């Protein structure tokens, strides 16, 4: 493999892409501060929850899960951005992926960190979360391997570990690049992080190999994770939870919301970090097409799910169906359908509106819509148990709302810190792309402009 790009261009790209690491603008500070404060509020809310008890949430009998598990599923879903874009595109060798991959992989890790928090946060006694882990203990007790929550524990940890590795491996050459351009303590740290990368032929070969292997491994892991998350519901016997379709339905929904989140993240990065040269309209166009596909798939699943429920006419399910479609949850339900299907299809279906702005608008709607989708899976079922005497309702408290907004603050903050420390566009991959398929890239660039 030849690295024969003109030194000047190479230098330019390096400087360009590493600029966020050296220069810190007012934009970064304000975003980091705001997101940090939002996160801090959520931490405070969690502290209050720990101090008072989980009763500070709006949960009740029969609605024992609501925002907590909605957030959990939502963020685990968002985390699927990294896998698909990066791994699938890598495996299939889609060239346009190059500036996008790291951005996506970072989303995976951050969203997972946030999502995986919720099963702990939502516990009645969060300080005992480690009992779910198979740790040897004086009581001689083990977790219950029949419980989907234990499967979750393993699946999410596997996925998190895999995602971190998958984020890290392609980061190594760039870390070395940063190391080479810095000095002092910073150089030492980056030196340690880059694991002695000197860019030898053997190292490049091994890197490529590792990335490829990880890409192949991470796809089934990602699919299994959200399938297992869906089984939290599907394994239960509650009406409109006990569905065989939930695995693929959730995976599709996860990828759907993940791409939307990725588009939003890219748009923000593009603006804030001035990456217009790298994140081009073509990327948004391509991702927009993917999003359109996922929207159609999502709608297909949703339609199939609701049609079979309606046609089957099973009394317990019918109640929940009605609650969603025409009952008190119907405003949320139809908002969801509009945000996840109507708007995306209209906006993304036409090339003219599949612009950066268009995809961002569609994506923002989808992120909200997909949060609603998870909420609508959880709450109507729980609030309408089989015996109507026990029907209830649910209203969130400020603690839950603060925790939800806090997750976004956390996400943004993590991203801010990440772009401060690591190049958000994979420098070597980008350059590799320029080297191997300059024509294609040029064509793409021309198309985008």
């Amino acid at each position, binding site marked *: 493999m030849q690295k024969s790009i003109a030194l000047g261009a190479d230098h330019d790209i390096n400087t360009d892409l590493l600029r966020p690491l050296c220069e810190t603008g007012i934009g970064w500070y304000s975003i980091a501060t705001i997101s940090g404060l939002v996160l801090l509020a959520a931490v405070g809310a969690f502290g209050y929850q720990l101090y008072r008890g989980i009763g500070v949430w709006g949960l009740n009998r029969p609605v024992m899960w609501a925002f907590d598990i909605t957030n959990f599923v939502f963020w685990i879903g968002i985390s699927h951005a990294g896998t698909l874009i990066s791994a699938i595109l890598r495996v299939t060798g889609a060239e346009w992926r190059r500036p996008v991959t790291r951005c996506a992989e970072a989303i995976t890790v951050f969203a997972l960190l946030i999502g995986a928090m919720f099963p702990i946060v939502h516990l009645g006694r969060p300080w005992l979360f480690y009992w779910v882990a198979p740790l040897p*203990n*004086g*009581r*001689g007790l083990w977790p219950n391997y029949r419980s989907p929550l234990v499967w979750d524990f393993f699946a999410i940890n596997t996925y998190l570990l895999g995602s971190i590795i998958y984020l890290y491996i392609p980061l190594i050459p760039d870390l070395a690049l940063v190391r080479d351009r810095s000095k002092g303590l910073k150089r030492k740290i980056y030196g340690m992080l880059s694991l002695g990368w000197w860019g030898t032929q053997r190292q490049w070969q091994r890197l490529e190999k590792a990335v490829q292997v990880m890409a192949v491994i991470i796809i089934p892991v990602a699919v299994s994770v959200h399938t297992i998350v869906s089984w939290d519901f599907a394994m239960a016997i509650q009406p409109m939870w006990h569905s065989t379709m939930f695995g693929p339905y959730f995976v599709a929904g996860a990828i759907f919301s993940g791409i939307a989140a990725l588009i939003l993240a890219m748009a923000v990065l593009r603006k804030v970090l001035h990456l217009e040269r790298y994140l081009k309209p073509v990327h948004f166009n391509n991702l927009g097409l993917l999003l359109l596909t996922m929207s159609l798939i999502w709608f297909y699943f949703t339609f199939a799910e609701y049609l079979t429920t309606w046609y089957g006419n099973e009394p317990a399910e019918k109640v929940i169906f009605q609650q969603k479609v025409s009952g008190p949850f119907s405003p949320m339900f139809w908002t969801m359908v509009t945000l996840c299907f109507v708007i995306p299809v209209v906006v993304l279906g036409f090339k003219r509106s599949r612009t950066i702005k268009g995809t961002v608008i569609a994506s923002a709607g989808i992120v909200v819509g997909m949060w609603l989708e998870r909420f609508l899976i959880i709450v109507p079922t729980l609030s309408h148990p089989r015996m109507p005497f026990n029907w209830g309702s649910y209203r969130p408290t400020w603690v839950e709302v603060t925790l939800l907004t806090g997750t976004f603050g956390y996400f943004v903050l993590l991203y801010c810190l990440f772009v401060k420390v690591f190049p958000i566009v994979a420098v070597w991959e980008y350059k590799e792309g320029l080297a191997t398929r300059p024509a294609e890239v040029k064509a793409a660039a021309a198309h985008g402009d």
Partner: protein
Amino acid sequence: MPRLLLFGFLGVVVCAASGFVLLELSNTSAPAQPIAFDHWQHVTKPDGAQLECTFCHEHADKSAHATIPNTDTCMGCHQSIKTESPEIQELADYADRHQQPPWKRVYWIEAEANEFFTHKPHIRASIECETCHGAVSQSHTVKRETNLTMGWCVDCHKQRGASVDCYVCHR
């Protein structure tokens, strides 16, 4: 600033760790009792009273609690025996005032374990007191000799074929 944070964090960790250690230590320590009662003297001493455990801990075979005897029981004998001892005089003072010495409990299980240990079935199954309480009869001061962890209880239950159903103890 980061250094301060680091130290702060370390400080919390150290405090927490030492807290746990202290917690564990306090579990096994022998608390200082208001009157230096000597089990050996009452139970084992060759020319002593050679009492049965249930002579004083009289409810062990019928109740959840073995119970510590009240001063009336003590004074039953010590009205006339060894009245010259300052410890006995102190005991007599308590008895005169109709008070009980503030004995410190040596064995207990944390309330949050939701555990309902009952002496009675253990006595019924002829478990020796010393199985759980150690060689009290040989000791001059009582200290906690077993930690009463759940695994320890369960092991014994398993060995003896007693039920290990959670509902036997926890409810």
